[in-house]
């Protein structure tokens, strides 16, 4: 399942700067450096956690990998091919292999699309099978994310579902093409904790079942530790630390990582409880 030898995604000193025009008359621009020479690689079959605070560039990294943005400089290799310049047919093939799960399930589904419309859209776009096979694929995909019986959800619309259900539909949409690599951009930040755990379990089961590689973007070290094999910590557009999840949590090297771990709330119930139990 996990294959530490095959690199599926590799970023080589990727930089991305956003420019905002501040004044119409002078045309002066304000620059925001989202990513500054970031390099890391993701191995096939693993869940790689990208941890960082708001504005650290973690979402930009995800958007770059799915080609919603193009980097200013650097190389971005997916399956060994540089995707920074691809177009046309190659881009379409790339889209088939790489999918994304968005942060906000209330925004990432078209309000005029039923669940079936949303989940079957990737199949239609990529001309997969006839309508009967599509229906089966959609059904299977919805089952995989725990929406059962799937036929019952086919004709529901986003406003008729809860946040957790919507996010499952979004995951089903990302998974229906059986992609090799999926970017999950804070998929649980809009959901409450109990549903978040469900979503985590769905993701790790999907990984086992479909042999997908995940880039899991989160601001929570706890979530990253729960789900990820390796963690990368990103701070102000720079990758400060990468390593196995356990190592990063137990033995953080960079001061920022240490600060992140320190910032986690702790419940020192141990000693107090001991007092009462005795």
């Amino acid at each position, binding site marked *: 399942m996990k294959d530490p030898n095959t690199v599926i995604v590799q970023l080589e000193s990727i930089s991305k700067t956003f420019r905002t025009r501040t004044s119409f008359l002078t045309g002066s621009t304000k620059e925001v450096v989202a990513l500054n020479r970031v390099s890391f690689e993701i191995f096939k079959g693993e869940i790689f956690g990208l941890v960082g605070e708001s504005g650290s560039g973690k979402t930009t990294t995800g958007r770059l990998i*799915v*080609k*919603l943005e193009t980097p200013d400089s650097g190389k971005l290799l997916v399956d060994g091919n540089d995707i920074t310049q691809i177009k046309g047919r190659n*881009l*379409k093939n790339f*889209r*088939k292999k*790489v*999918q*994304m799960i*968005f*942060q*906000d399930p209330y*925004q*990432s*589904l*078209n*309000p*005029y699309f*039923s669940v079936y419309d949303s989940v079957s*859209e*990737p199949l239609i*776009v*990529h001309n997969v099978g006839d309508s009967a096979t599509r229906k089966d694929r959609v059904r299977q995909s919805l089952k995989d994310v725990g929406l059962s*019986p799937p*036929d*019952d959800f*086919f*004709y*529901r*619309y986003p406003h*008729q579902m809860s946040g957790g259900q919507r996010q499952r539909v*979004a995951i089903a*949409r990302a998974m229906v093409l059986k992609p090799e690599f999926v970017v999950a951009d804070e998929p649980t930040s809009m959901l409450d904790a109990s549903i978040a755990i469900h979503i985590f379990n769905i993701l790790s089961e999907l990984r086992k079942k479909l042999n997908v590689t995940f880039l899991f973007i989160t601001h929570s070290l706890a979530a990253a530790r729960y789900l990820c094999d390796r963690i990368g910590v990103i701070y102000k557009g720079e990758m400060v630390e990468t390593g196995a999840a356990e190592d990063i949590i137990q033995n953080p090297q960079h001061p920022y990582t240490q600060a992140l771990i320190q910032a986690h709330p702790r419940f020192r119930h141990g000693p107090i409880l001991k007092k009462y139990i005795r």
Partner: protein
Amino acid sequence: MTVNQSTQTSKISVRPAKRFPTIERLKEGWSVYKENLIGKIGLTLLVIFALMAVCSFFPPLIDPMYHPMTGVDPLITHSTGPSWRHWLGTDFIGRDILCQLLAGTRIAFMVGISAAFMSIFLGTVIGMIAGYAGKIADTLLMRLADMIMVMPTLLVVLILSSLFGQLNIWTIVLLIALFRWPGVSRVIRAQTLSLKERPFIEAAKVTGASHFRIIFRHIMPNVLPLSLLYMTFRVTSAIIIEAALAFLGFGDPSTVSWGMMLQWVWKTGHMFQAPYWLLPPGICISLLTLSFYMMGRAMEEVLDPRLRKEVAQE
């Protein structure tokens, strides 16, 4: 186990499986609309005018003298007031005014709705393309829209009709449509600009959907309610432009429209002598445009929850 499953499925099938958002939305919208007094008045007026338009087909069948264009009452040599034979009187050569009015309703609907439909179609497509494509396409299309928007429609159509002689009614419709799309396209463009930043459009992009698919499958359903709202306002302006054109003598001479009736009143010098002839077309023009305008205002309230009256205030 199998028994269990079958009972489960049977339980599920009881639930309503297919629900269409469009129909649900319409129902929801209607419940807001019917609370609106202006909207109800507008709709009532519209229904009355629609009935009038339908009725316009019957009088010529009763007696050829009731034909709005060619039917002349042989007994009458000059304009007469209302009578049992001619409920609203006759014009200067003995044609029935009521029949002309009914035929004019049909023309007004035809002109208004088809011109509005065409301009909405153009405006929506151009607006979506400009908003979605951005950059040069956006600049070009929007500057074109600005150029057309500052042209006074009536004046340009007048010049064109004086250049090319009498215009066919469909040519007039087409010209109105060609000059009235920019307002719509600006609104649709603005809407598209905000829609295309929404994550569901990005999700479609990541899926690999083509631009064509994104525009027509994802963006269009979301902007369509707004274009329909603008259609009601465009109907109003199209009717007024056609009436003005006809009144000034540049209408289609082979059709009877309300503007044309007003022109006949004016040309034959009956402006202040025959109020029974002057008033009906004038009132009808005002009321029909008013009804579309009122419906538009009520629909605006349906679409924009911020305009709704607060029922319970904090």
